[in-house]
């Protein structure tokens, strides 16, 4: 019964505060009157009666405060009251509040921005049902397709393997397959009016895909196992929410409509919910179609049938399973590998013992799949960790600044706090009130920081992508990010608010009211007092130095990367990928097509030279095979593998790779003649030492069987895939006398000067030679190289920005401390000047103190710098972690900051009038 009474009281106290207060006030006053009356009745004179009554009462305000403390719900009321008082304080000092909020917004915002990216790339679970039950049988960090034969953990599975495992396993309630890399194709909407549809990303998936993930469509239905039954027999599609919005304008009648891909019409049967973006983070499909439609999406190829030999497997599917309840990861792994081994066993019948051993040594690494697949993790994991550390340091520096200005202000607030004490606030209450102010500051700063982060993430995206295909990062704030920001805000408020709150709680009442306490709290010039301000600044210097050194290392590293020699001329080189096989060309038609393209290009005036290359430069693909070299040095047989390319005539003159001995591939090296080839320098040296390799026969082991070529030349080493590549063994054979599949190639075009003319000429040439092909995407070599350096560029830019930010914050912090110190020492300076000190010596006095603080900070920072350098060393290029230049530069910048910071305080010190100073004290 009393509970409802208490609740009523609570609510009344909260909402009718004024009425309650008025009532209390009247009651206490009435009591006083009664006391006075009583005293008069007992014979006291009125004045005496009043005084005695007052004493017995003990102070009206005190009594009221005691009652308030005991009220139900008082805790809430005090918090609200503290907030109101705090907000009023902040309003009264707008300048200070603005500086503090800005500093905090920068610190918190930077952390939230980076954390958003970290959350999306590393932490976020797929927005599907029970993601913790999902596992990857394949490698979630891999993307693309592999053909051939090897051992170890599988990156991908083949379609027949997936089918067998789906039917026969006991540990998964369902298995789903998705093509690892979906193509971007032109998708037309029927009756949309456009003849050429915009590009959309297609994802080929199994019928079980949506049910295994547990994704329910917001419209229509999803695939079932029916779509897997007949090859090319299920032209249906599920579209993404964003595709539905952008191409169908959110029309709810979309389920009756069709889309066209490569000439085939697909029924739209469903729409996925907006938050589902496929199983690969960073790749957002627009359209899902069944795997059984593969030959419509990749024409001219068969990735679905069982291979003629197990050496020719096409591994291209990511496979995800949902564990049966009660089956843990280890059991799932054991169970499925038993089934997988059975498959391998059944296929290994005809192999040699050696091959058999390798073949059977393949496994499925079964790992947690809740976060989906992503190539971003491999590229960005370390950089993101480093960035989080960097912004964490920025936050600490920012907190130190705010703490310092709060401490400075607390000295000026002594009187106000003393008054509060007389009103009945205890030390705990004061502590709480000042801390609440800090929490308010941090919350406001955090709110602005969140806004800053949203804006910054958009800019961050542009930095990260750096190329024509931005990674679709979905960094809109979700609950985890909001919780993170809130947590950081609370943490920072405690960090910088604790010291001022403690100081407030220790207010010495009598000395403050009498005015004898030093109204300017010293920052360490009194013996025994902890120089908190100076300690904070020294810490800031250390942290900032760390950041500057890291930034310096990245800048130097990037400079090195940008200066790397490729072995060929990167400028004025255009490159484009042409895939005739995908558009119906077969066999000899393809070779003829390429010959024609080259011939047409050779006639264009602005084209100096054109050639072909199967894997392309910086294109993401490469070939690697074992080779047997006749007459090679014995030890070279240990690792017989080499990378290789198939190139057209005049390849080396087009790219500019120098020919060291012999001749390059020419038009005469086509299918009818003896196959020739060239080695690069590393390969030649490895197999032949200083001997001349020309004329030697080399045997290449491929899945088709062995093929030979004769060495006709040696070329210089060059970079084929990444800027950081180390020299590798490589050989080149003619594209027109190929080994294996030569159905697609990169066309390389060396131009003389301006790029506009050649680009249109190339388009025309390709169009004329192959009218069926869609418009080609032409890139410059510079673009490709630049894209490959996108991550490095991002880190360098960001660490530069943050390093500068840190330096500015430290400068402000040093300025604050120094101007404080000068104010506190005004009398001392006055005396010195009166005694004959020169202005310069005063300047030096101030400067020395500032530089001493910087020096201490630097000295403390040195060991940390070595540690930090080691940690980031895997990302550095050509720079040692303890690089003296970076270190010297950072230190010099810090000292410069120290000098800059005390410019104004020093000038003030120099202009001290001794008479005024002494009189003031």
């Amino acid at each position, binding site marked *: 019964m009393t509970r409802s009474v*208490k609740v009523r009281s609570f609510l009344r106290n909260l909402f009718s505060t004024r009425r309650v207060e008025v009532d209390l006030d*009247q009651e206490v006053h*009435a009591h006083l009157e*009664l006391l006075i*009356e009583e005293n008069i009745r007992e014979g006291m004179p009125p004045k005496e009666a009043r005084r005695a009554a007052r004493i*017995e009462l003990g102070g009206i305000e005190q009594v009221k405060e005691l*009652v308030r403390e*005991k009220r139900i719900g008082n805790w809430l009321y005090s918090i609200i009251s503290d907030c109101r008082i705090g907000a009023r304080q902040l309003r009264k000092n707008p300048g200070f509040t603005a500086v503090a909020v800005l500093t905090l917004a920068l610190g918190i915002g930077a952390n939230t921005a980076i954390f958003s990216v970290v959350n999306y790339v590393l932490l976020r679970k797929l927005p599907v049902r029970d993601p913790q039950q999902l596992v990857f049988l394949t490698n979630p960090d891999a993307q693309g397709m592999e053909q051939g034969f090897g051992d170890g953990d599988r990156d991908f599975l083949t379609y027949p393997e997936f089918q067998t495992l789906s039917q026969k396993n006991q540990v998964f309630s369902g298995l789903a397959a998705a093509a690892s890399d979906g193509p971007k194709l032109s998708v037309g909407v029927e009756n949309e009016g456009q003849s050429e549809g915009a590009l959309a990303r297609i994802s080929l998936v199994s019928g079980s895909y949506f049910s295994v993930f547990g994704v329910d469509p917001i419209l229509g239905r999803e695939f079932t196992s029916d779509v897997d039954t007949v090859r090319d027999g299920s032209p249906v599609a599920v579209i993404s929410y964003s595709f539905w919005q952008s191409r169908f304008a959110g029309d709810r009648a979309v389920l009756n409509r069709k889309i066209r891909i490569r000439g085939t019409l697909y029924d739209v049967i469903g729409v996925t919910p907006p938050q589902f973006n496929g199983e690969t983070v960073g790749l957002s499909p627009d359209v899902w179609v069944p795997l059984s439609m593969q030959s419509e999406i990749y024409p001219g190829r068969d990735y679905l049938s069982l291979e003629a030999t197990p050496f020719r497997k096409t591994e291209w599917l990511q496979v995800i399973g949902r564990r049966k309840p009660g089956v843990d990861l280890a059991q799932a792994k054991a169970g499925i590998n038993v089934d997988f081994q059975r498959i391998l066993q059944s296929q290994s019948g005809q192999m040699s013992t050696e091959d058999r051993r390798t073949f059977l040594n393949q496994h499925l690494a079964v790992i947690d799949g809740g976060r989906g697949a992503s190539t971003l993790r491999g590229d960005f994991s370390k950089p993101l960790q480093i960035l989080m550390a960097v912004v964490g340091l920025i936050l600490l520096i920012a907190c130190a600044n705010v703490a310092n200005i709060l401490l400075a202000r607390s000295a000026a607030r002594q009187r106000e706090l003393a008054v509060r004490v007389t009103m009945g606030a205890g030390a705990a209450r004061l502590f709480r009130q000042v801390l609440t102010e800090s929490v308010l500051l941090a919350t406001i700063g955090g709110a602005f920081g969140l806004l800053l982060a949203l804006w910054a993430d958009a800019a961050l995206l542009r930095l990260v992508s750096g190329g024509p295909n931005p990674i679709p990062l979905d960094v809109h704030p979700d609950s985890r990010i909001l919780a993170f920001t809130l947590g950081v805000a609370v943490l920072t408020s405690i960090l910088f608010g604790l010291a001022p709150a403690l100081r407030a709680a220790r207010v010495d009442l009598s000395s403050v009211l009498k005015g004898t306490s030093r109204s300017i709290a010293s920052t360490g010039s009194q013996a025994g007092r902890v120089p908190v301000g100076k300690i904070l600044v020294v810490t800031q210097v250390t942290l900032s130095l760390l950041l500057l050194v890291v930034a310096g290392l990245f800048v130097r590293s990037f400079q090195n990367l940008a200066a790397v020699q490729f072995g060929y001329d990167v400028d004025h080189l255009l490159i484009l990928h042409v895939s005739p096989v995908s558009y119906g060309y077969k066999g000899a038609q393809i070779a003829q097509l390429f010959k024609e393209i080259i011939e047409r290009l050779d006639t264009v005036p602005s084209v100096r030279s054109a050639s072909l290359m199967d894997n392309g430069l910086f294109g993401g693909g490469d070939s690697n095979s074992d080779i047997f070299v006749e007459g090679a040095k014995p030890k070279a047989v240990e690792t017989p593998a080499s990378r290789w390319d198939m190139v057209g005539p005049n390849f080396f003159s087009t790219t500019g790779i120098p020919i060291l001995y012999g001749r390059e591939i020419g038009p005469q090296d086509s299918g009818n003649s003896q196959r020739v080839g060239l080695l690069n320098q590393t390969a030649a040296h490895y197999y032949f030492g200083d001997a001349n390799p020309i004329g030697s026969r080399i045997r290449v082991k491929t899945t088709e069987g062995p093929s030979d070529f004769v060495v006709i030349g040696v070329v210089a080493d060059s970079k084929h895939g990444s800027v950081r590549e180390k020299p590798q063994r490589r050989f080149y054979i003619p594209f027109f006398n190929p080994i294996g599949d030569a159905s697609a190639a990169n066309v390389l075009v060396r131009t003389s000067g301006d790029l506009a003319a050649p680009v249109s000429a190339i388009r025309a040439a390709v169009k004329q030679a192959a009218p069926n092909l869609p418009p080609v995407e032409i890139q410059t070599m510079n673009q490709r190289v630049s894209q490959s350096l996108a991550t490095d560029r991002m880190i360098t830019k960001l660490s530069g920005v943050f390093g500068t930010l840190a330096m500015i914050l430290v400068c402000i912090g040093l300025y604050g401390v120094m101007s404080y110190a000068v104010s506190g020492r005004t009398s001392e300076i006055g005396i010195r000047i009166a005694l004959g000190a020169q202005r310069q010596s005063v300047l030096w006095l101030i400067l020395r103190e500032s530089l001493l603080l910087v020096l201490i900070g630097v000295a403390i920072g040195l060991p940390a710098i070595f540690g930090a350098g080691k940690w980031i060393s895997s990302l550095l290029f050509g720079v040692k972690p303890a690089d003296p230049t970076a270190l010297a530069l950072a230190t010099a910048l810090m000292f410069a900051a120290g000098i800059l910071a005390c410019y104004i305080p020093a000038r003030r010190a120099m202009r001290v009038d001794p008479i005024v100073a002494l009189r003031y004290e």
Partner: protein
Amino acid sequence: MNSEPTTLLQGTLDLLILKSLVAGEMHGLGISRRVQQITGGTFVVKPGSLFPSLHRMEEEGWISSFWGDSENNRRAKYYRLIKAGRKQLELETKRWGRISWAIAQALEAS
């Protein structure tokens, strides 16, 4: 010997106030004087302790308040005991009895 009840004897003060109100409605000063009287002058309840207790007990629902006129026609806030309060008084009295018996026992033991 005027000792002021401290927060440790909070329950005791509640008890005394409730007991005082059995006699009838009273304003704050009246309650204070009554407690002094019934404890033979041992406890003098200062307003700093009285008011917090009164207000808290009202919030708990043991007593209720109203504004009325005092003897000299001055406005004052009066308190009266209500049903829940009487029950609380009974409980507290029993508890106090148990405590004092227990302590008496403890002190008599050798």
